[in-house]
Each structure stands twice: as C-alpha cells, then as structure tokens.
C-alpha cells in the first residue's frame, strides 16, 4: 500500500474507534447493571442528560474535567430516579426504563434549548508519546482523547472486577439468584442500586463523549438511538465485557462505512445509508438470539425480576 493509502486506513480506524466510544461506555455500564439483575432501558435518557450537562458545564467555561464529571453526575442522577422507582418502589423495570428514556429526551431538550448552536472547545487529543509515532497504528490507536483511552481501559477493569474480585462475585450472585444472595446476607437492593448508579455514570460519560468530543456541540436528541443500540450490544456480548467492546467497534465500523460510502461514490442516498446502524443492530440481535439456550445460559437469571425481601 502507498503512504497515502496507509494514512487513509489509519484515519478510518481512528474514526471507527471514535464512533464506537459512546457505545463502549454505555454498553459496559448497562452490562454491569444487568449482571446485578436489573434491566435499565433508560440508557438513551441518561446519555442525553449526560451530554447536555457536560456541554453546558464546558460552555460555562468550567474546563473539560469538570464537564466530564458533570456528564457522569447527570447520568447518576437520572439512574437514581430509576433506582428509586424500580428498586425502592418495586415498579416494573421495563416501564421505568421507558419512562427514563422519554423523560430524558424531553428534559435534555428543555434545559439545553439555550445551548443549541453555541460553540465549545473540543476535548483535546492526547497522543501517547512514542506509541503514537508507530506508522498506521499510532494515528489509529494512540492519538485519541482521554475518554477514548478510558473506555478501552474500562474493559479489563470491569472484567477484573466482575470475575476476579469478591465484590464482583457478590454482584453476579445478586443477579443470578437474589433470594439466595439475600439469605446469605448480602444487601440485594444496595448492590443493585450501586450497579444502576455505575450504569448511569457510564451512560453519562457516553453522552459527555458525544457532546464534548465526537461532535462538540449540543443538538436535541443527539444520541439518536445509541442508547438503544448499546442495549442490544449487551445481549450481543452475552454479558461479557470484552465482547461488548468488539461489538461496539463493529458498530463503529458500520457507522464509518455509512459516512464514507458516499465519498467512495456508492450511488445510494444518505438517508438509506443512515439506516445501516439500526438495521445492523436488528441483524445482530437476530443472529445472537437464534440460539435460545445461548441467551438463557448467559443472561443473569434474575434479570428484570422484582425482588421482595419479606417473602
């Protein structure tokens, strides 16, 4: 390959990783939530609140660190609303998640109205010394901003937590059999609330990445379904963190393919190409769900079930 072709390849790989990063955050957070037995369909709402909070904070001149923290905090705030209803008041988790998504879409548009069309400084890239100078791989993998690195490092960290620590074992136990976990003496609601909050923080960071780095601006509904795609990714990953990362990168690839297809002269209109990520989600869900036992074996056994402590 010529030097120009290599540079293009590196640029495409880098763009793919950027497109995948919000999905990585959101899917990993939801994965931990679901491992504790809670299905939170409110990702879309938490992401949007994270995006608008992060953007608003950056726009007020508070610096990117504070903006990222605000995004995560907004996600946690939304997730606590869910936790109060679904865990505290034992309401139906599907309905609560839907409510969180509907409410988050509206509330973020409401509070973000004055931010539409205003500029901020994008989250800067932090090229890793030496590594970023490797041909192709350097610009593709090691010249990103801090949130991209954080999303990748979160994968081994979460895997280690879930499968190598006692706390992770307890979390999984709560998700597999909440009655047994309760009988042994673990605080089911406490563990689940923490897992939901973690999911909220990660969804908030996913939103923060969208509005601070991916497209540094605030647009109503700017997550455009990524929260729901992330939910599908968790199923696709059969609740294993590293597979969630791979799934997200696959989707990043589809997104970039769609954006570049027109440049390459594919004679298909932009709207049709934009359907690709959504159609890919459906295809992926079908492929993974075909084998019912595979899902049943891997899904946390108490996923979405209401826990009554005083049976």
């Amino acid at each position, binding site marked *: 390959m010529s030097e120009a072709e290599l540079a293009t390849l590196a640029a495409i790989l880098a763009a793919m990783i950027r497109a995948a990063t919000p999905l990585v955050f959101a899917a990993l957070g939801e994965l931990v939530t679901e491992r504790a037995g809670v299905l939170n*369909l409110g990702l879309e709402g938490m992401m949007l609140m994270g995006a608008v909070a992060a953007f608003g904070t950056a726009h007020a001149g508070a610096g990117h660190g504070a903006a990222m923290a605000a995004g995560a905090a907004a996600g946690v705030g939304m997730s606590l*609303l869910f936790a*109060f*209803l679904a865990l505290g*008041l*034992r*309401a*139906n988790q*599907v*309905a*609560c998640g*839907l*409510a969180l998504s*509907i*409410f*988050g*879409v*509206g*509330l973020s*548009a*409401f509070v973000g*109205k004055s931010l539409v069309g205003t500029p901020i400084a994008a989250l800067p890239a932090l090229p890793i010394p030496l590594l970023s100078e490797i041909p192709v791989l350097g610009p593709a993998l090691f010249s990103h901003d801090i949130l991209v690195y954080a999303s990748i490092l979160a994968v081994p960290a979460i895997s280690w937590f879930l499968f190598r620590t006692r706390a992770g074992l307890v979390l999984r136990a709560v998700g597999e059999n909440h009655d047994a976990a309760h009988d042994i003496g673990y605080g089911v609601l406490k563990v689940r609330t923490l897992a939901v909050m973690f999911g909220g923080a990660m969804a908030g960071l996913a939103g923060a990445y969208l509005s601070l780095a991916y497209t540094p601006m605030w647009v*109503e509904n700017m997550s*455009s*379904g990524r929260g*729901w*795609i992330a*939910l*599908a990714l968790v*199923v696709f990953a059969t609740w294993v963190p590293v597979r969630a990362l791979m799934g997200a990168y696959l989707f990043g690839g589809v997104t970039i393919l769609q954006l570049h297809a027109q440049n390459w002269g594919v004679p298909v*209109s932009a*709207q*049709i190409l*934009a*359907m690709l990520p*959504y*159609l890919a*989600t*459906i295809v992926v*869900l*079908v492929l993974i*769900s*075909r084998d*019912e036992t595979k*899902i049943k074996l891997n899904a946390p056994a108490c996923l979405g079930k209401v826990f*009554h402590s*005083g049976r």
Partner: protein
Amino acid sequence: MLRLELRPQASRTMTFVAPLLAIAATVAAGGVLFAALGFAPLPALATFFLSPLGDLYGVTEWLLKATPLAIIACALALGFRGNVWNIGAEGQLIAGAIAAGGTALALYEVSGLWVLPTVLLAGVVGGAAWAAIPALLRIRFHANEILTSLMLNYVAVLLLAWLVHGPWRSPEGYNFPETRMFTDSALMPLLVEGMRLHVGVLFAPLVAVVAWVILSRSFLGFQIKVIGMTPAAGSYAGFGPNRVIAFTLMFGGGMAGLAGAMEITGPIGQLVPTVSPGYGYTAIIAAFLGRLHPIGILLAALLLALTYMGGDAAQIALGVPLAVTQVFQGMILFFLLAADVLIRYRVRLSLPHGARR
C-alpha cells in the same frame, strides 16, 4: 422509616386512585418547575392546562390530537397486557403514513368515494406490515421485540425522509422536502367547518370498543390475559405465546398505521419529513395512565393531548422551550409508576427496632 407491606390482594381502589395522584403530583411539580423558571406558578399552570381550551378552535384541536393517541394506546394496551412490549408505534405510524401517502399519490386526482377508504386501509396494512417484522423476528428467532421495534422507528423516519427528499418529492414544490398536496377525494372530511377536526375522531371510540370486545369477549383476549399473568400457564392450557405476539404487535401496528394515515390525510394533507410529534411514544404513556383499559385510555389520551397544546401555549405566552411537553409527559409516567406502588403494597410507618416490642 417507611416500609412497604405486600397486600394480600391488589387494591382495586388504588388502581383508580393512582392515576389521579400522579396527575395531581405532575401539576404540583409543574408548578415548581415554572416557579424555578421565574414564573408565577398558578398563572403559568393555567396557561399550560386551561388556556388552550378557551375557544372552539382549541377544543377541536384538542380532540384532533387526542385521536391518534387514543387509537394507538388502545391497541398497544392489548400487547402490554400480554407482555408484548411494542414500543415501535412511532415507526408503525410513519410506515402507515408512507403506505397511505403512496396510495394517495397513486390515486392523484382520481375521484370517488372509495379513494379515502382505500388510502386509510393502505395505512393500516402498512403499519401492520412494519410491526410484522418484530413479530416475525420474535417468534422465529426469539429476538427481543423492544429493541427491534424501536430500531425500526429510526429506520421508518429515514425511509420517510428519503421518499420526500427523493422519489416522491413534489414536482411543483420548489425543492421543499414534501410530496404534492393530496386531492380532495383522499382527504378526511371535516367535522366542523373552518376547523381541522375531521371525522377520524370517531375512530377513537370505535377502536376502544373493538379493543374492549377483543379483550373481554374473545378467546384471544383470554389468551392475552393468561400469557400476561404467567407466560408458562399458556402452555399448560395448550396454547403458546406466538398467536398473542403476532396479533398484538400487528394490531398495534395496524392502528398506529391508521393514525398515521389520518394525520396525513387530515391536518397535514401531504407527506412531509415529520408526520408525528411523537404520538407513538406518548401513546405508551396513555396506555399505562389509562390502566390498559379502553375507557381509561380515552381519558388519558385527552389529558396527554392537552400537554401538547399546553406546550404550544407555554412556548408562545411564556417563551419556554416546546420540550416542556415531553417533560410533563415524562413526569406523568414517573409519578404514575411511583403511585402504582399503592396498588400492591401498603405503605407503613415502621418504628426503629428499639421502639418495637
């Protein structure tokens, strides 16, 4: 500390009290929201909830907006009762609008009383066909219908955008992304001269009755209720969930498609990129607020239609963002889910351990 105590039986009273509590809490929270924005709460609430209904035009617009909500929610409720989570009504509405719009364009300048029923039927078929996709994927491949039906919402939006930007764009529309205006024989007859309210409003009570008959007077309705209560019970009784999945999804899709067809042959009169302000999502809230019962849903649809009007009124009079509508709708659902705890639980004040004997 407050403690939840499981009731031996679900409280019937609380089933009806909970929505009223939720509405009261939403109004109160709305007052707090307006106060936080610097408006006097009571006049602002009056602007939101009362001012839109001040004249005949307001009342006709109210019924016009409640119609799609009621039609879709009555159909969705059957699915929700049977544990089938169709949240793709927005896409099914759009698919219905596309099918109806395509038919109306094909019958451009054709006259005859059969034109409009054909167009509406195309809408029903289009919506049902769109919903058949998640139904098929769930039955054949066990794919979760929540995610597939939702993904198809985005696909439908893009499909409509492509059609009105591309192949179906009006030749005399100065490059605006819209189709030709439909001709008279494909438009809904108006109910009140000079207003936008059309005869389609009569479909709302009709669909409510159909939904009630299905649920209360048919074997299918019995199957829906059995599978909704305990999915395994159906198989003991000798029927699987597939019939319920296929029917409830496609009935929901068909009615959403009808609603979409009536939007474009009614107040809009052509296909444009946005044919619904989120009726398909709001109908989910209407279904829950109406207790999944047709009569409750008709009332809930009226209330939620009012939040669309209130959003418009508040935007004009107070200058708040239009998204205030979605904020109110989200609050209603949240408060409802919270109030629903009273149906299955008693809230007891429990004393700390030391005080107990």
